[in-house]
């Protein structure tokens, strides 16, 4: 259980860090170009929409039998984790460009210049809502299978607090965050989680039960390292 709790908190923290940094870049661009009122208003409405989403969907989870929940969540985690893993491998090998927060910030500022304040606020709202939906999914997905939504929420909240604190101090996009490395680690962890839960839901057995998560994550990490080499050679 401890392995699951720590893994849920850590994966929710790291994945949320990536998403919150992306939302922060756009909110910051709105704040810099149009002032903080539309930026904070858009952020507030976006957060309220996310709370409403969780309030509606949260109770539904309790009504789903655990085996079915593990199966669905495991499959979604697997699709999500493998997608991040693939992208991180291709980026690490230089096959697709790295995500650049500074460039994204400059692009957002260009797009927002000359637009009315309410449109800028809407941009902040959309960024918070869209990135927030990803955070909500990750928290629910890594937490639901073992009743760890609360623990995963702590990880996500810590990531949001860290990004906001760093943003308040620096007042610039957090481009020093090693996004691709984080995505690779999160991809490894979520792929392991997804495989584990999906396997349990269809009657597969893992040696050493919960501790199987660790060698499984290590296996995905090794596969990713080999994948980077394969992509470099093929390039």
């Amino acid at each position, binding site marked *: 259980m401890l392995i699951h709790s720590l893994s849920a908190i850590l994966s929710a923290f790291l994945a949320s860090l990536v998403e919150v940094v992306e939302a922060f870049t756009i909110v910051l661009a709105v704040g810099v170009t149009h002032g903080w009122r539309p930026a904070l208003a858009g952020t507030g409405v976006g957060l309220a929409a996310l709370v409403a989403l969780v309030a509606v969907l949260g109770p539904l989870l309790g009504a789903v039998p655990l085996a079915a929940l593990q199966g669905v969540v495991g*499959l979604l985690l697997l699709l999500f984790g493998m*997608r991040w893993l693939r992208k991180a491998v291709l980026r690490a090998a230089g096959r697709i460009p790295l995500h650049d927060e500074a460039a994204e910030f400059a692009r957002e500022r260009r797009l927002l210049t000359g637009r009315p304040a309410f449109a800028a606020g809407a941009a902040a709202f959309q960024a918070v809502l869209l990135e927030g939906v990803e955070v909500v*999914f990750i928290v629910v997905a890594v937490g639901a299978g073992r009743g760890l939504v609360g623990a995963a929420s702590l990880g996500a909240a810590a990531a949001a607090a860290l990004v906001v604190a760093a943003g308040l101090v620096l007042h610039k996009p957090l481009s020093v965050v090693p996004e691709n490395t984080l995505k690779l680690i999160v991809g490894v962890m979520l792929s392991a989680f997804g495989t584990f839960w999906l396997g349990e839901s269809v009657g597969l057995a893992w040696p050493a039960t919960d501790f199987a998560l660790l060698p499984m994550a290590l*296996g*995905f990490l090794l596969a990713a390292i080999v994948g980077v080499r394969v*992509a470099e050679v093929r390039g």
Partner: protein
Amino acid sequence: MKVVGAVWNEVLGLFVDDGSLAAAILVLVGLVATLRGRGLIGPALGGGVLFGGLVVILLENVRRSSRR
């Protein structure tokens, strides 16, 4: 409506980026579940097939994607 569409696309995009990767994962999961459900493979072997299959799918997809 525009926001609803954007949220839907974002949610779909969470799971499906390269369609062939998602399809291969779904086929593997369906195959393992069917074999296990019919008792054709044991629980431990099924776990190995699922994990090994996912690693192969990832490496094959990366190899193919890096040639594009």
